């Protein structure tokens, strides 16, 4: 043991930490310069299938032509929500089907009534949106829709978006 101690004392090595410190500072500078904390973003998860053609419930020929099933053809049970923008792209008017809706709160209460009725199993919900509507205004309507619960207990997350033709703003 004593011989070992003697050897160590004679060959004492001093590490030059300056070079290591230089490198560590370079790494630190890199991390400080590239550090940009991303804001915490939320998201609204949706299933957006392309809209199926809407069939009129009065089209009795099409509806009765298939005698092999009692189910209604797809597209008959479609809930359409129409959103009209003004010149600035703000939300100007709303409608469910043919009926106008005065505000987002009214839309929410109407949707609640519709979806609480189990006899209204909609195949699809279509948002008909005016071309110039701003994204943040659209998201206000989408938020109202996604707050609804379907009769099966699942939240409404399946929507289809359709652009209103020219002339409807």
């Amino acid at each position, binding site marked *: 043991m004593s011989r070992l101690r003697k050897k160590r004392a004679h060959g004492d090595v001093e590490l030059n930490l300056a070079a290591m410190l230089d490198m560590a500072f370079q790494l630190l500078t890199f991390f400080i310069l590239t550090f940009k904390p*991303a804001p915490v973003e939320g998201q*609204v998860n949706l299933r957006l299938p392309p809209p199926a053609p809407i069939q009129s419930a009065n089209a009795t020929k099409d509806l009765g032509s298939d005698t092999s099933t009692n189910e209604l053809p797809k597209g008959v049970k479609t809930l359409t929500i129409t959103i009209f923008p003004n010149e600035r792209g703000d939300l100007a008017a709303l409608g469910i089907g043919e009926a106008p809706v005065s505000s987002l709160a009214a839309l929410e209460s109407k949707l609640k009534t519709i979806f609480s009725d189990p006899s209204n199993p909609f195949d699809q919900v279509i948002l008909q949106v005016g071309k*110039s509507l701003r994204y943040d205004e659209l998201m206000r309507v989408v938020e109202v829709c996604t707050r609804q619960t379907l009769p099966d207990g699942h939240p409404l997350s399946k929507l289809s978006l359709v652009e209103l033709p020219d002339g409807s703003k």
Partner: protein
Amino acid sequence: MESTEGTPNLTPILDMVFQLITFFMLVINFKSASMDLTLRLPVVGSARPVDHQGEVDLLVLNINDKGDLNVYGIKKNIEEYIAGEAMTSRLTARRKGAKIEPGDELPTTVVIRADRSTPFYLLNRVILACQQNGFRNFALKAMNKEQS
């Protein structure tokens, strides 16, 4: 002069620098490079952060108020880029054993980060391109409160 000469002990400063490096290494997130932080996202109260833990394939699309698609700061042709990403998603799914034919629904979730003032017809162009290529699952990014 010679009598005052001394060597500074660099060990504590090195320790501190290494601790700082460790901190920055742990908090750095290169995913944020794919996000265009100049976009002003809409504010939606019910929007909640979701952590997929890397289990879901994501396709992040940054759309500015002119309807341009920016990927890592480079403007891309919307239709071509989405078609290319759809092919990549299909090949990735096939490698994982899924049987996906052209026209089938893709397992990738499209993350849309659009500026709040983007008109709907420009946004819809991107959504339609995604739908035509088989994407069905979308995540619309929003802030849940206004940022100062």
